[in-house]
């Protein structure tokens, strides 16, 4: 006993409330599906494993203003000093610090440029043979640099001819997994891949290739030198507290700055994302709540407006279930139209967001999933009022005029 046609016709004759509700449902669907996807995207991003033992690693920078020391020599002295501190597992000066948000990257190719060949982008980190151990990286294939292979230089042309790389990076250049021992080029400079380490995050978590890193055995004298230190479990806090004064005791004409724990670097890097995520969750909750209240309120309003009509229908032979069905069908019709509009709006909004922000394409599953949830929610919101309508006594038909 379907009553779709008369319900539809009756709706068309008093549609203001229905249209408002329909728009509300459409807007909710459009915004919630996009917001939910952005949240998912951020959650997977935030939950990504950097690959580091973040709790036991920290970094800092030494900014030297004193002119009476050889910078290179001082860096080596500092490295040795830190490595010998109790609780320190290893330490190394590095050209860029992972998770810090600053560093350098370039394209690596299979043939020397300007020849055209396959190319993969990677961040590069320069330092000595302690870099891998300091970052706590596991070698998957090959070997680490030897101290002899580390080039200590001021010249841009004098470069090492070996590198260690992350697995994601080398697999991009050599998808068959035979990257070890191959030669890759940075510009026209060749380097042999002597080791492959597990994939860890580079300086930028938001990079398109966050885990492409090339480790280069190169030391350069720098006025601003980054250091990374890995400590024994639980020793980091104490070491971080004292490191500044201890280093200044070694040589005072310098400043220790940007002392940051690895887990903290990651949080700082991501603080904006976490805030955005919280705001989106609040937005979704508010929107869904408002829409549910809207449906609930409109149905209650419709019922109080139609009390006499409902009583009359009951008098004319409607069972309670027929009254409930009436409101469910009516609500479903409004919702379905709203959801169809909402799905198109969600798609359009997704496109706009994609153009203006770094957000991937909104998957169709998100739109459909949201539409289904909104539909279920609309049923939940309407079922209570509909039951109340069914409980209206048929005697209302004769009692109220």
């Amino acid at each position: 006993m379907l009553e779709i046609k008369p319900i539809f016709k009756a709706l068309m004759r008093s549609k203001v409330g229905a249209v408002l509700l329909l728009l509300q449902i459409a807007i909710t669907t459009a915004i919630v599906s996009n917001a939910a996807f952005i949240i998912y995207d951020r959650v997977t991003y935030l939950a990504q494993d950097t690959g580091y033992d973040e709790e036991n690693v920290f970094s800092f920078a030494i900014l030297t203003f004193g002119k009476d020391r050889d910078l290179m020599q001082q860096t080596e002295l500092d490295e040795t000093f830190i490595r010998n501190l109790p609780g320190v597992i290893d330490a190394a000066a590095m050209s860029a610090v992972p998770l810090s948000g600053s560093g350098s990257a370039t394209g690596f190719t299979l043939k020397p440029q300007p020849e055209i060949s396959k190319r993969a982008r990677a961040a590069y980190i320069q330092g000595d043979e302690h870099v891998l151990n300091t970052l706590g990286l596991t070698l998957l294939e090959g070997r680490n640099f030897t101290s002899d292979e580390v080039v200590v230089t001021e010249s841009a042309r004098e470069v090492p001819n070996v590198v260690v790389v992350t697995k994601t990076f080398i697999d991009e250049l050599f998808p068959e997994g035979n990257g070890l021992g191959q030669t890759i080029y940075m510009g026209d400079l060749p380097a042999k891949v002597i080791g492959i380490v597990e994939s860890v995050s580079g300086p930028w978590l938001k990079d398109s290739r966050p885990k492409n890193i090339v480790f280069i055995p190169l030391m350069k004298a720098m006025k601003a030198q980054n250091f990374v230190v890995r400590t024994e479990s639980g020793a980091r806090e104490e070491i971080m507290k004292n490191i500044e004064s201890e280093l200044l005791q070694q040589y005072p004409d310098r400043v220790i700055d940007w002392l940051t724990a690895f887990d903290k670097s990651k949080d700082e890097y991501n603080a904006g994302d976490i805030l955005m995520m919280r705001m989106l969750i609040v937005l979704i909750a508010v929107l869904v709540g408002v829409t549910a209240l809207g449906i609930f309120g409109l149905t209650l309003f419709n019922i109080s407006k139609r009390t006499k009509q409902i009583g009359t229908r009951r008098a004319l032979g409607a069972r309670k279930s027929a009254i409930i069905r009436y409101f469910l069908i009516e609500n479903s019709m409004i919702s379905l139209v709203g959801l169809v509009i909402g799905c198109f709006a969600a798609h359009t909004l997704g496109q706009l967001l994609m153009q203006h922000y770094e957000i991937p394409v909104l998957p169709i599953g998100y739109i459909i999933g949201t539409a289904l949830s909104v539909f279920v929610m609309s049923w939940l919101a309407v079922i209570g009022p509909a039951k109340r309508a069914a409980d209206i006594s048929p005697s209302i038909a004769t009692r109220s005029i």
Partner: protein
Amino acid sequence: MLTMNNIGKIYQTEMVQTHALRDFNLQVNEGEFIAVTGPSGSGKTTFLNIAGMLEPFSTGQYLLDGVDVGKLNDNQRADLRNQKIGFIFQGFNLIPDLNLYENVEVPLRYRGIKASERKRRIEQCLEQVGLASRAKHLPQQLSGGQQQRVAIARALAGEPRFLLADEPTGNLDSLMARQVMELLEQINRDGATIVMVTHDAELARRAPRNIQVVDGKLADFTLYQGAPTANAHVLEGV
């Protein structure tokens, strides 16, 4: 067709108990046309509502076509209303968002009658009340008398054997009231049993049998017999 034995109805509100009906006894036979009169608040509507199963009664027994109404559940009562009873209300009670055709269709849909049969009946009933040409109009586009005729068409569409009308002419001027009355008389001649509550003494006199409700009790007398019945003394007290 309708038998009420010692029906009592008590409305319980926070402060007071109202005995809307007490010891109400009535027998209505197939084909009768009964006018119910009585002072305001005497229980006429209450009686009609109970007769039409729109509300439960507190005590007594009510048999409709031999069925003990007190033993039915809500769905059974709804189905019985739909099949056996046609209602005509003082306020017409047409559904404002439905046109005349759709209004008459309402009880037929609840009965699950198929579309072609619905169409036949609706057209026939609208024809009978003289509004076939207005089928697509909305109720608000009609006069009160016309609306009441649509309501009668709606009551007739289900071919009920029992028509209950609560002051069907209460909101109509006398000309329209007479037209409605003539329609009801016609329907009665066609075989339906009618119980009509009215304030209009002139209309009541046209009905073959009059009953009067006073203070929730029945005073029955039959005009066409020309003489008051044994209950007539109740009336004299009014």
